[in-house]
């Protein structure tokens, strides 16, 4: 069974009198262990798709199966649990909480799952170490560089050992050197078994992914799996 199965997903926004079809019948299957890039120009529907995949938004029609669960019929609290336990988010502008230090930021998803303090500390420490942030545990986000902040965000996304990482333009605010650094981390994570969906408009990032999906006007116009060389 696939990790993600989208069947005839549509999303319609109503702004005033105008109806906008952001997604027009999208079918998509993603297996566990994939590293997929979703590309497209702005307005192509890629953000909408990511929001639906991330259980932040509900489709207008269609079916969404995530890890064999029918996400369509879950309530607000159940969706929160899904996001907390199955999903990890990485954003373009990092979205760390500015008043919490690195350690507390990494710890945050575990708090909502009532994990004990000792375990929280242990996991946060391990993650920080894995991201090369061992010396930065007590630092505030404002004291970190962009790349370091994104690494904190990745550590936070991994805190509850998610099945799926959703990265929304994770390198959009980073220079080319840091971009490589972050993409290397993502690739490494994928190799260790985490499924990743990467939304981007930077063509060069495709080198890191195994599959590319291109959206245009709410339709998948290209779905290409790389041949393993």
């Amino acid at each position, binding site marked *: 069974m696939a990790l993600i199965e989208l069947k005839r997903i549509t999303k319609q926004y109503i702004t005033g009198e105008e109806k906008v079809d952001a997604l027009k019948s999208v079918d998509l299957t993603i297996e566990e262990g994939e590293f997929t890039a979703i590309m497209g120009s702005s307005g192509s529907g890629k953000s909408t798709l990511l929001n639906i995949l991330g259980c*932040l938004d509900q489709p207008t029609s269609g079916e969404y199966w995530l890890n064999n669960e029918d996400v369509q019929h879950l309530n*607000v609290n159940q969706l*929160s649990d899904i996001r907390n336990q199955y999903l990890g988010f990485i*954003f373009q502008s990092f979205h760390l909480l500015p008043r919490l230090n690195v350690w507390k930021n990494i710890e945050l998803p575990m708090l*909502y799952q009532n994990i004990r303090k000792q375990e929280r500390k242990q996991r946060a420490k391990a993650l920080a170490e894995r991201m090369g942030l061992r010396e930065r545990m007590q630092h505030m986000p404002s004291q970190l560089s962009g790349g370091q902040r994104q690494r904190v965000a990745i550590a*936070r996304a991994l805190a*509850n050992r998610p099945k799926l990482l959703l990265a929304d333009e994770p390198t959009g605010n980073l220079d080319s050197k840091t971009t490589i650094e972050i993409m290397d981390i993502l690739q490494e994570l994928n190799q260790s078994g985490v499924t990743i969906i990467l939304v981007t408009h930077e063509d060069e990032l495709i080198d890191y992914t195994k599959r590319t999906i291109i959206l245009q006007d709410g339709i998948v116009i290209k779905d290409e799996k790389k041949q393993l060389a």
Partner: protein
Amino acid sequence: MQIKNTLRLALEQLKANKLRTFLTLIGIIIGVGSVVAILLIGESGRKDIIGEFEQDANQLFYLHLDTSEQSKKQQASLSWRDISLLREQYQSQAQVAASYLDQKEVVFEQSTEKVDITAVTDNYSQVSNMLDIAYGSFWEEGTNQNVVLINEALAEGYFGSAGQAIGHSVMIDRIPFTIQAVYTTNDFIQSGSQANLYVPLQVWYKIHYLTDQPVHSIEILTLSENHFDQLRTEMVRTLAESKGVAESTFRTQAVADQLDMVNNVLRIFTAIISSVAGISLLVGGIGVMNIMLVSVMERTREIGIRKAIGAKPRHILQQFLIETLVLTTLGGFIGCLFGLGMAMLVTQLAEMSFVFYWPVFLISFCITTIIGVLSGFYPAKKAAKLDPIVSLRYE
């Protein structure tokens, strides 16, 4: 998410915005402070004014003729005979004292003044708690000496000080009386009455040839509280029967009635001032709600992030509600200290004894909790309802 973490988070949030926290709290601090101060001062004042009376308030009553128009026609009067009757009949149940009111020209040293005179029985000071002997002592039982008790104001006015007045003589109706003691009255109960001198009743009868031995008021102290009301009606009946008049000829007045009245007046007074202070609490509460709404708005992105990583609406609600509660409780705590200080200062300035009335703090804790919930709920609910996608994009 455990309450402990939310609590720490709230404290950090408030600490990060110290000035704003303080400004927000001023309303609550002033409100709680005034309520606490007023209640404490009120309670101290109440204890001060009527505290000593409360002791035997439930055992003391006064009996006199009803002077309203209707009963005047009955031509009844009270005299020493009635005192003797009551003393005899209720010997084991009550102490009976009596007083007769007069007004005379009194010569103090060189000056003359028209003064109210109360001639009282020898047990008067034991029965009534009206007199507080400051210097000297009450006359001995069965005295036939011309002795007089004068009040502090007169003593200070004519003899320099209360202590120096003792032993001097004053002329009442051209008859010398020796000053035996100086007393202070409890102004509150005695308000309006000008009974400035106390003399022995039997001496007064003799000097002024009052052969029918009239009495104006009978003071009765029951030996226990248990049969107070019963004795009150029984004594009236006994007197009415012995004179062959209606019971309505007499009126009784209990100290407890007066104290109840005083208490009620004080309570109403306190309640009115407190409710005025309550307005400040209302304003403070609105201020807190306002600042929490601003805070929710400012932290829209934070709320979005928290929701994206798995916070449920109730987590967000809890976070903001607890933050508001911490805020108002902190204000309440500071307000309590503020009010306590104010009450201590005022009671000291007014030379009252300070009474620490601890329920005040419980009350203010309850008030601030209620304010916290009321003013925090709406902003918290608003925060909990925010759409994560919209809040994540919020700049």
